């Protein structure tokens, strides 16, 4: 710390150089923060996905069906701990732009999906009130609805037994949006769907949500379910929540590859800048370093000085860059373009920031290595003569 004035003076010897280096580092680390932050977002989605949950879907996504009869067969399989039934449809509230996807859940979803943000009492309310829904605060804000409001939802095609398209829901309550449901939640009652939809569809189910006793058995379980129904009228496709999260996050980009590539390119760019800046600075001040050595500065303190001079704009730039990245990522979350495509914004976790500062330090080290070596092998007499 006592050498701080020395480093400070060295930095402001060429203010233009220092400021430009700093600004380049800000750009590089803003990009680094956004890229690695995006990686962290998607890594988090996969990490949060439960290893012990499986989903049974229809093998044919559109117009495929599962049946309540299949539920019984699956429930009796030895791996199953809890099995819940759910279904959904696409509709809209008032304007086709206000899309609503009610997620109809039967009572056993309580056990199969314990992370749903409903308390015991709220579950009871939902089960007791067929046309009631719980919205999360994000959906409620998007639709401009609050507890007690009516929420008529229209579907594109006739969806009710009488040929109507209108579902007269009402909002029982608004719950906190859980981070795993960025698209929002509209939690509805499966019994209502079953009672109101066309007779031909009664007994049909969109999805089984299953908690397993043993997460290691998920592959065997998936295989068993799909094999059981392979030659039935309703073949299934069973997957683990982990695998689904992995597929979902790698759909558009190979996120790790792209984000790491981009951040590496950014670091590469400033590595040259820092290395060149510090090399020039040392070259210009050879005599000064010779004086320091003459005064009795140890070789390590001189090296530390060189390194500190290289690291200062780099670390400060990283800090400012991360601040910008934080600001940007909190602002882009609401962009219509990202929401439409289901793209999540970067999250600058503590881990991301720590990684960033480690890389900033490494870049400074790498940049300062050559000049430091040069100083160490300095011929003091020759340098002082200049």
């Amino acid at each position: 710390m006592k050498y701080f004035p020395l480093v400070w003076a060295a930095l402001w010897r060429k203010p233009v150089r220092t400021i430009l280096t700093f600004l380049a580092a800000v750009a590089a680390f803003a990009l680094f923060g956004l890229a690695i932050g995006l990686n962290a977002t998607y890594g988090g989605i996969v990490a949060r996905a439960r290893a012990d949950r499986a989903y049974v879907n229809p093998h044919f996504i559109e117009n495929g069906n599962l049946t309540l009869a299949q539920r019984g067969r699956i429930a009796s399989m030895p791996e199953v701990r809890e099995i819940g039934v759910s279904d959904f449809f696409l509709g809209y509230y008032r304007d086709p732009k206000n899309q609503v996807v009610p997620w109809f859940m039967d009572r056993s979803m309580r056990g199969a999906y314990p992370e749903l943000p409903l308390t015991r009492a709220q579950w009871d309310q939902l089960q007791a009130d067929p046309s009631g829904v719980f919205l999360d605060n994000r959906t409620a804000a998007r639709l401009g609805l609050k507890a007690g409001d009516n929420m008529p939802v229209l579907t594109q095609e006739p969806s009710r037994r009488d040929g109507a398209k209108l579902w007269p829901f009402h909002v029982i309550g608004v719950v906190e949006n859980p981070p795993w449901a960025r698209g929002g939640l509209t939690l509805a009652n499966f019994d209502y769907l079953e009672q109101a939809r066309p007779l031909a569809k009664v007994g049909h189910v969109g999805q089984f949500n299953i908690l397993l006793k043993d997460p290691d058995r998920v592959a065997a379980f998936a295989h068993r379910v799909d094999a059981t129904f392979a030659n039935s009228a309703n073949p299934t496709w069973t997957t683990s929540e982990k695998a689904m999260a992995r597929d979902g996050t790698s759909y558009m980009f190979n996120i790790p590859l792209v984000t790491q590539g981009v951040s590496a390119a950014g670091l590469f760019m400033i590595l040259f800048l820092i290395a060149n800046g510090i090399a020039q600075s040392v070259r210009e001040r050879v005599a000064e370093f010779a004086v320091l050595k003459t005064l009795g500065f140890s070789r390590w303190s001189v090296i530390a000085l060189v390194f500190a001079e290289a690291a200062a704009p780099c670390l400060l730039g990283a800090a400012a860059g991360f601040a910008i990245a934080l600001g940007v990522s909190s602002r882009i979350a609401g962009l219509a373009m990202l929401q439409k495509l289901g793209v999540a914004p970067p999250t600058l976790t503590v881990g991301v920031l720590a990684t960033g500062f480690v890389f900033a330090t490494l870049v400074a080290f790498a940049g300062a290595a050559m000049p430091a070596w040069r100083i160490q092998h300095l011929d003091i007499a020759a340098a002082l003569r200049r």
Partner: protein
Amino acid sequence: MNLLRQIASVTGLNLKNLPSRMGSSLVVVAGMGAAIGVLVSILSLAVGFAELQRRTGDPGRAIILSQTADTEGMSAMPRTVLGDIVAAPGIGRDADGASLADPEYVNIFLVSKRTEGNTLLTLRGMGRKGLAVRPELKIVAGRMFRPGARELIIGIASQREFAGLDVGDKILMQDGQWPIVGSFTTDGDVLEGQMIGDAPTLMSAAKRNNFNSVIVRLAGPNALQSLQRALAANPRLGVRAERQSDYTERTSQDTAAFFVAVAYAVGGIMALGALFGALNTLYSAVGARTQEIATLRALGFGGTAVAVSVIAESVLLALAGAVIGIGLAWALFHGQRYAFGEMLFHLSVSLRLVSIGLGWALAIALLGGTLPAIRAARLPVVDALRTV
């Protein structure tokens, strides 16, 4: 002395001295290479995606969907309306006078990637006019499916990308296993990522009554308008026609715009970094050349010539970096296969991208060169010479 000759000789002198400033010159080359390389690499994705959509959107074809449906998957057309649609004006005719209209059915199901993970694949049911509407569809291995038979053919792009979809493999359908009897190419359009079978047979297996779309070959350049008028005049049908090129553009524009936005956002931040690097290098170059510049000025060379020499250095270094960056992007990514769901295409570093990359480099070089150039031109000659 004439200005152009001044500029030429000062610039020549400057560039000759460039090797002595190798280290700092590398900053510009590396920074620009990284920025332009990243920009061009990400844009190559957008270009490949757009090219796939362009190949698919044959403007000589139209797609007919339900009035309320945005996409083929959301559209449903009962058999009762097909007769009127097929007979509508504006649709091309074959040699026998039959309407070139093909009612089609789509469903999606899951396939495994050859690498890891699953994705959704479109299974398309084609009718008897399917091939006439799509003359570009050619069987490359095996044979075509037979009408009425429980058989499928697979697009070559899907076959490469996904597991268990080779000719001879069997696919689990609602009524048992169907063999893949052939593979096809459609000259690199979206269909190459799909699987095709006989529409009526697929629909009876799926217990479906409604088709999704009718694909038609238009009779001529103005045929779409008469087709649209005829369909609109018959509200019972509840359908509308859209040029296929407009349909693909409409359904892919959000994704295409996103790819481009990512490329320019990332490229823009990198470019900003590269700009600061270039400014830094050029200021220090002007600093290192103080005496040279002062001497030149004292000899009678004008400020403009000196300024131009600085900008020329900036442009030269930036273009060198951009060429390296574009070259790397080309070597690493050009022609690489890319799978975005069932959208299978090749990344493409097109000539247009090369010019965008060089254009950006030029713009950054001019931006980064101007301030140092002004400083060089304004250098106080006497003070500078005193430091000699």
